[in-house]
Each structure stands twice: as structure tokens, then as C-alpha cells.
């Protein structure tokens, strides 16, 4: 049975260094994903992810367990990555709002299910690439890691209501974008 993070944290705090490797293994993908989404560079992201795990190890005794370990860890990686890219300006790709129509989730779902797994993955990838780093992180944390808006608020430093508003807008944008991508994909098929 998988033990929860607190079990391994207790072991690490009792100087069991090997227990920390379990925590690294467990969270490395998410930590790396957050870093790579913000830094947009795999090498930099990997270096940052390593540093974050070392930093987290050194600060583990200060972790008060008021939030989940993953929330605390993602906050460290988010802040470290953001401070590394503070001077950079991000541009969001414009969405094609001309095709905005009142599609229901059921209709979109039906259209998506007609596509192969590979095509679906390609569409998700294209959509996520169009988002700016902050939006991409919100989507990753909310839909991939299924973090609550409260946890996302802790990680990103945004207020909880702000997170909710952004997620609401993003949800709309994503549905529009999915529909647009499906149309494009259908056009390619019928060419």
C-alpha cells in the first residue's frame, strides 16, 4: 500500500535520506512539468527541478503541514521558475473567436470521441501550447493534479476568487479551442 507523503517526511526528518527518494520519485513529473511550462526549456527546467528538490529537503523541517506536501513543493518550484523568468514577457496566442458558437459539452465530447487517441493527444498538446505559462500551470494543476482552487491559490499566490475566475474563463477558452481544433482536424481528413 502506498504510504502518504507525511509518512516519508517523518522518516526524512529522522535522518532517513532514502525516504526522500520516494518523495522525489512521486513528485518529479509534476515539478518538472511546472518548471518546463514556465521556463519553456527542458534543460533549464530539469536543473531547476533538481535545485527545488534540494531546497525542499533543506527546508523540510520548516514545512508546517498546513497544506499538502505537494502544494508546498509546487509553490517552491512555481516561485523559483517565475523569479527566473521575471523579465520575460509572455504573449498569449490569439484564439479564433470567430468560430465561437454555443456548443454543449456533450456535443464536443461526441466530436472528440470520434477521433483516435493520437489525434486527441495532438489536439490537447496544441491547445496547451497556445496558453501562456500561467494559464498552462492553472490547467495542469486543476485538471492533471486535481488540485483545489485553494491549493492553486497557495501555489500561485493568486487569490482564490481570482483562481476561480481565471479557471472559468479558461474553461470557456478550452472548449472553444477544442471545437476549433476538431474542425481543423476534420477539414484535414476531408481534403
Amino acid at each position: 500500500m502506498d504510504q502518504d507523503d507525511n509518512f516519508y517526511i517523518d522518516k526524512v526528518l529522522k535522518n532517513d535520506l532514502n525516504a526522500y527518494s520516494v518523495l522525489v520519485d512521486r513528485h518529479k513529473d509534476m515539478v518538472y512539468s511546472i518548471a518546463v511550462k514556465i521556463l519553456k526549456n527542458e534543460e533549464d527546467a530539469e536543473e531547476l527541478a533538481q535545485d527545488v528538490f534540494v531546497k525542499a529537503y533543506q527546508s523540510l523541517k520548516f514545512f508546517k503541514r498546513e497544506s499538502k506536501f505537494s502544494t508546498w513543493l509546487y509553490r517552491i518550484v512555481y516561485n523559483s521558475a517565475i523569479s527566473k523568468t521575471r523579465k520575460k514577457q509572455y504573449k498569449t496566442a490569439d484564439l479564433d473567436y470567430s468560430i465561437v458558437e454555443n456548443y454543449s459539452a456533450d456535443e464536443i465530447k461526441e466530436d472528440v470521441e470520434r477521433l483516435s487517441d493520437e489525434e486527441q493527444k495532438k489536439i490537447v498538446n496544441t491547445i496547451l501550447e497556445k496558453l501562456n505559462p500561467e494559464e498552462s500551470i492553472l490547467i495542469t494543476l486543476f485538471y492533471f493534479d486535481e488540485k483545489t482552487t485553494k491549493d492553486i491559490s497557495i501555489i500561485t499566490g493568486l487569490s482564490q476568487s481570482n483562481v476561480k475566475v481565471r479557471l472559468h474563463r479558461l474553461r470557456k477558452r478550452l472548449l472553444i479551442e477544442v471545437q476549433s481544433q476538431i474542425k481543423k482536424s476534420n477539414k484535414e481528413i476531408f481534403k
Partner: protein
Amino acid sequence: MINNRDKSEDFLKDFIQKLDLESPSDGFTSRVMNKIENEVAEQSLQMNIYRKLRSWYIAIFSAIAAIAYTVYYFIHSNLQFFIGDYDLMIIPVFKKLFLSFKELLPGLKVSSFTVVIILAITGLFLIDRLINRFRTRKNILFSL
């Protein structure tokens, strides 16, 4: 009853989760653990140096306090204790040194005891600087 928003939410979750999370390269965990082991080793080395230096600090402080007290005693006693055992020529040298130090700051009225304390603190400060230099050099050596 499931509303439209929940449906969208479920759909987007399932749809986005089709994509795998990015993964770091192979051996990531072992590289992190190596880094941490190195950090731990370096920290314990620094702790050892610090502990050694701490005992040095205590020894030096005790020595300076003893010297300061002896000097103070030499000047303020009527030398009754030392007359039989020590060369009397050396005692005025202490006294002259002490008085000339006091004359450096004629406007400042401080007791002899305060001067001795100031001298002791200054001595400690200089030794501390010296030890810090030694410690920094040693850290550089071990970090290579």
C-alpha cells in the same frame, strides 16, 4: 442533477488527462539524491569545524580574561604578591603601557577596568577575524 458546467469540467478533465505529464530525463532521482548527499556531507563538515572553533573561542576568551585580570591586578595591587617572585623591572612596563593607552584618549574619562575590558574585546574581535579567514579558506578547500 449534473449541470452543464460539471459536464464541461468532467469532459475537460478526461480530455486533458489524455496527455501524459512531461518527465525529466532518466536518473533524475539519483542525481537529486547525490546532490543532497553532497550537501549533507558538506554541512556536517562545516558543523565539525564550527564545533572545533567553538572550543577554541572558549579557550581564547578564557585566556584573554585571565591575562586582562592579571594585567589589571598588576597595576592596582601594590605588587605585594609579586615582589618576591617577579622581576620588578617588568612591572613598570605594564603600567606605562596601560597609562599611555589611557592618554591616547585624554578627553574620555573611563575607569581602568573599562579600558581592560575594551582591550579584551578588541583582542577577541581580532582573533575572530583571524579564525574566520581560516574557516573560509578551509571551506573553499573542502568544497572542491
